[in-house]
């Protein structure tokens, strides 16, 4: 069952890379112009292109790219000449650290806030949460990041303005390095959290309200179950289901959004790499980033499906 689900992702990844590849290579500009010395002769430029395989039809280039991937070769960066796979491997931990911890924190905050806000519908607490989540949905995340940087880093110097870890701590103890990473991670994490939390809380609130009006909750009340038990045991699970689905579907937005955040905070993740690759027209790096992030998104969707069937035994992965 699970195996079939994974197989289903493969054509999707082919599609994603194919479309990205086509879009990229439909570009009227010439990527070689970006990095070749302007003094190079025209005929030598043709040689450069031939070396990179850029003189062949786009379809041929795509199949060539696929073939190389089969061998575990994602190509070489046009800019630095380094293997793309190495570049991405280097960046993956930072991106995973940021996105997984933001995902966990988002879940930790969404459930209690959404639950209480739905339970105490129209109370002051509910109104405050509703207003704040609207605000969170409307804030441009990159601007929020800039504001946090402005206040906490530039004004009050509480947090570093960029990077992953203090460069002086290369040889320090594991503990000191972990603290430094956390210190650097705080602002980007907070930014992603505020942006990602808002929509989910609101959604959770709606499902709780809908569930609490159902007969089985009334029946539970009539049998004398405590409100706490009703809420956390009976309503919670059913409200968790849609959240998991939405989270799976919203993952691409979350990952995409965190790329801008990485860029702003100079967080050495895949997003920062990818965004700079766009500007440099570094196609191999860009294709690699798209491939990696789409695999991440698929993986997230798959995990969402898995946990869905764990929470709700009625749902079986087809």
């Amino acid at each position, binding site marked *: 069952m699970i195996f079939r689900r994974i197989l289903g992702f493969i054509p999707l990844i082919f599609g994603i890379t194919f479309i990205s590849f086509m879009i990229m290579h439909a570009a009227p500009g010439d990527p070689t112009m970006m990095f070749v010395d302007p003094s190079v002769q025209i005929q030598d430029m043709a040689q450069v292109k031939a070396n990179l395989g850029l003189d062949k039809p786009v379809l041929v280039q795509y199949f060539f790219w696929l073939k190389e991937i089969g061998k575990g070769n994602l190509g070489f960066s046009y800019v630095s000449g380094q293997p793309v796979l190495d570049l991405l491997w280097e960046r993956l931990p930072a991106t995973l650290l940021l996105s997984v911890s933001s995902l966990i924190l988002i879940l930790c905050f969404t459930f209690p806030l959404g639950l209480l806000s739905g339970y105490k519908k129209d109370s002051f607490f509910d109104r405050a949460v509703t207003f704040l989540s609207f605000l969170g949905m409307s804030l441009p995340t990159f601007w929020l990041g800039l504001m946090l940087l402005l206040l906490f880093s530039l004004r009050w110097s509480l947090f570093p303005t960029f990077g992953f870890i203090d460069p002086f701590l290369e040889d320090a103890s594991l503990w000191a390095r972990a603290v430094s990473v956390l210190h650097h991670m705080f602002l980007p994490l907070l930014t992603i959290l505020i942006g990602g939390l808002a929509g989910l809380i609101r959604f959770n609130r709606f499902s709780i309200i809908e569930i609490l009006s159902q007969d089985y909750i009334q029946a539970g009340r009539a049998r004398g179950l405590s409100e706490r038990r009703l809420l956390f045991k009976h309503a919670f699970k059913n409200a968790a289901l849609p959240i998991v689905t939405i989270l799976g579907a919203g993952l691409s937005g979350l990952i995409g959004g965190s790329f801008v955040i990485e860029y702003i905070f100079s967080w050495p993740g895949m997003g920062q790499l990818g965004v700079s690759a766009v500007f440099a*027209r570094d196609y191999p790096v*860009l294709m690699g980033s798209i491939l990696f992030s789409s695999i991440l998104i698929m993986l997230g969707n798959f995990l969402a499906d898995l946990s869905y069937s764990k929470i709700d035994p009625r749902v079986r992965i087809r």
Partner: protein
Amino acid sequence: MKISVLGRLSIGFFIALFLLSFGLLLFPSLDPTAFDPFYIGNPEAPSWAHWFGTDDFGRDILLRCLSGARISLLVGIVSVLISVFLGVWVGLVSGFYGGWVDAVLMRFVDIMLGIPSLFLILTIQVMLSPSIINVIVVIGLTSWMGVARMVRSEVLSMRERVFITAAFARGFSNSKVLFKHILPHTLLPVIVAAMLGMGSAILAESVLSFLGLGVQPPHASWGNMLENSLSFMRDAPWMTVCPGLLITASVLGLNFIGDDMRAYLNVRERVDARA
């Protein structure tokens, strides 16, 4: 129709923004691109002469924010029209015809949703020359998937309804049933999604322009004002604060209005329709 206080405030905000930003065109003396060579590199803090302060060229930030509003509203409205048009078509065709057409279209939607949209938008934008029209088209072409999925599911549930069976039984053609009987029923959620989508489009424009790939100077847009403010963040925070507040206020306003409409039209809240 019951409009919440926040909804009223939002409508008022947009009316004021429309009037002020377009009214500005009537006063050529208030030129948002006029700069004072004396102030170059020396942004001035908010004062009575310049309510929002000036930027590094000595240009008035309030005027630039207002002329940027024209662009942001334009981008929001037109790109949403494009994405709604595409989304409704794909959703209608997919839900109505089903079978392999549906399978192909929905896989295409999955693929589009699987590509991190920022990379997609940036890549297209890098290869096209960054202009307002390109920004609008690119945002429209990359944000229709939510609407398509939503319309498709509406069509699927409509098809099961008795009045559709009755329409077929009366011998109506496919296109008549589709456009006269099914389409109108899918429009309510689409209108709400369009409201919320406009907010997303405004946000997308600001990201693009912020990264230097959207609206180009000397035209002002909220996003490129933010890009411009980066090097002055420490000394002239008002350059960063003002455009950002306007973006937030507009998107917030659209969300409030959308939420009121959703409540009024009795449309279910759905996060996945947000492009």
